[in-house]
């Protein structure tokens, strides 16, 4: 017999209570892990997509709020409130490369989900855009003219909707365009979009002379302030945001969302901790007599204390380990749902939880600490019992 064996025997005595207490801490830790895993991946994903915008900054209508800026990063449709003339005015400035975008949404049938799902569709200037982003094709071909009536698609559109080169996509009721090519993976939101020449988009969506936003870069970023002034003079009603500024605002929003979710996980953990305290208090009460017997056999107070703290700690160890597994599995399940849900800001993103060793270790350690702390009071109570109290009433 050794202490650990004795503790394991005690732990498994009331199977039901053991399971439910373990479930409590497992759920708490799983929530913690899932949220951190998804949150961390959102961060990485948003950062990657921002840099994949390619330019140094974006030009948007001056009344576009931060929430809508997220749409640029995630590929959400943005109302087309800039005039095409603004693009031409900015393009005319020396040292600035600028690309206009007109974004809309369309529905594509997803054979896996068995339903139509919304995806972003964007109109761009084919030649300029390809040069700006350095796009390459993985299948089919690129647009041959600035107003070819066809679309190319990103890699994840092809995978998600099982679309092939040669298929016709319903852009809007009554209008179908042929897929002529598939882009190589860009790591940006272009992967999850349908692309067409901007002139075609303007015609199809009845938005002649309009655009949603522009991405741009300057030859020398050090003279950015100078360029900014020139742009603001050249065009009306525009606002300029560098990618860093946009990323900053998005991450701030993400941060507050994460904080809220972590509070929820925190509440789950506090509940789990009280579950452990409750179970251990009950165990101490039930085993008063046995504690007395142990003392009569020569057990010191600290041995009694240790057995209860260990028992409590094992809940944390098992609960933490189980929680990590459950948390990762559920983040794998939840992430695609977050990504595909048409109303979320992360639509079209390819989220997937990556196993992070540090997170695993931290989580289990954290779980262990919570459970050991939860066990301290009950263990102290147990160690303070006197043998006579425990044994005498036969």
């Amino acid at each position, binding site marked *: *017999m*050794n*202490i650990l064996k*004795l503790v394991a*025997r*005690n732990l498994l*005595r009331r199977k039901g209570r053991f399971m439910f207490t373990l479930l409590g801490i497992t759920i708490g830790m799983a929530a913690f892990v899932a949220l951190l895993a998804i949150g961390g991946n959102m961060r990485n994903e948003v950062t990657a997509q921002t840099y994949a915008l390619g330019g140094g900054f974006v030009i948007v209508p001056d009344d576009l709020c931060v929430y809508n800026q997220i749409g640029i990063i995630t590929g959400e449709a943005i109302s087309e409130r800039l005039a095409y003339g603004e693009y031409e005015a900015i393009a005319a400035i020396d040292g600035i490369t600028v690309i206009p975008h007109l974004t809309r949404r369309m529905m594509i049938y997803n054979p896996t989900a068995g339903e139509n799902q919304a995806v972003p569709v964007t109109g761009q200037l084919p030649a300029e855009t390809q040069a700006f982003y350095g796009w390459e094709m993985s299948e089919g071909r690129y647009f041959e003219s600035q107003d070819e009536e066809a679309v190319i698609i990103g890699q994840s559109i092809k995978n998600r909707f099982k679309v092939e080169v040669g298929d016709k996509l319903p852009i809007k009721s009554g209008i179908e365009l042929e897929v002529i090519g598939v882009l190589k993976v860009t790591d940006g939101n272009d992967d999850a979009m349908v692309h067409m020449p901007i002139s075609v988009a303007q015609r199809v969506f009845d938005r002649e002379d309009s655009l949603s936003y522009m991405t741009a870069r300057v030859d020398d970023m050090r003279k950015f302030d100078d360029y900014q002034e020139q742009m603001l003079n050249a065009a009306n009603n525009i606002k300029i945001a560098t990618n860093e500024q946009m990323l900053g605002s998005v991450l701030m929003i993400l941060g507050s969302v994460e904080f809220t979710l972590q509070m929820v996980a925190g509440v789950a953990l506090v509940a789990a901790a009280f579950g452990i305290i409750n179970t251990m208090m009950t165990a101490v009460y039930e085993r008063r*007599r*046995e504690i*007395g*017997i*142990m*003392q*009569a*056999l*020569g*057990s*010191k*107070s*600290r*041995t009694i204390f240790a057995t209860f703290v260990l028992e409590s700690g094992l809940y944390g160890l098992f609960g933490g380990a189980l929680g990590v597994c459950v948390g990762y599995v559920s983040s794998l399940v939840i992430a695609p749902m977050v990504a595909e849900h048409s109303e979320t800001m992360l639509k079209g993103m390819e989220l997937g939880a990556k196993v992070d060793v540090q997170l695993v270790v931290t989580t289990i350690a954290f779980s262990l600490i919570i459970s050991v702390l939860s066990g301290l009071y009950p263990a102290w109570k147990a160690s303070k019992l*006197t*043998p*006579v109290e425990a*044994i*005498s009433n*036969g």
Partner: protein
Amino acid sequence: MADTNAIIRTEALQKVYSNGKSAVRTHALRGVDLSIPRGGFSCIVGPSGHGKSTLLQLIGGLDRPTSGNVYIDDINIATLNRNKIAEVRASKIGFVFQFFNLLPNLTALENLQTAMMLGGVKAKEQRSKAMELLELVGLSDKASFLPNQLSGGQQQRVSIARALSNDPEILLMDEPTGNLDSESEKDVLEHIFAIHKRGKTVVIVTHNDTLAARAEHLFVIKDGVLAKNP
């Protein structure tokens, strides 16, 4: 009355129980001076509720006296801290209770092994020692039984074996046959006598006449005092 041959000695031992909020105080022991010889077979008898169990608990360090001293091998355990008393219990004293008091989720063997663990016996040596002791009480075939799979007499024999786990000099038994049928009682008594012959100091609180008749030293406790000290 310092008796150099005494392994257990009490001086002016008093115990007053005061029950929580109520002002009721029970004067369970009112000054007991007792001297129990080394290697002897001693019985403590007396009417119910007159302080026998209290005396045994104070001798075994399971409770603290209100006043007075308890010497085990000339160590005054009344002045020791909890941990030191626990050490004395683990090394020098084995207990046997009326209600067996086996740890219910452990097998007979594991009950002995746990006592050995608390007495500092290495894990590797526990098993063979424990089996030897179970053999001694005739229960080696029941080693892997849980207490609730054993009869009362068998449980008490396991509990006697457990009391011997750390080879203590002193065995304290509180009505060891009080909860047994006459068949089991005879059986348990045989083992108690056998153990005494192995040189242990045995102190038994009992209502059993057969047992009391075999006592080398008989103590009568009445109203919390020693009525007769042979």
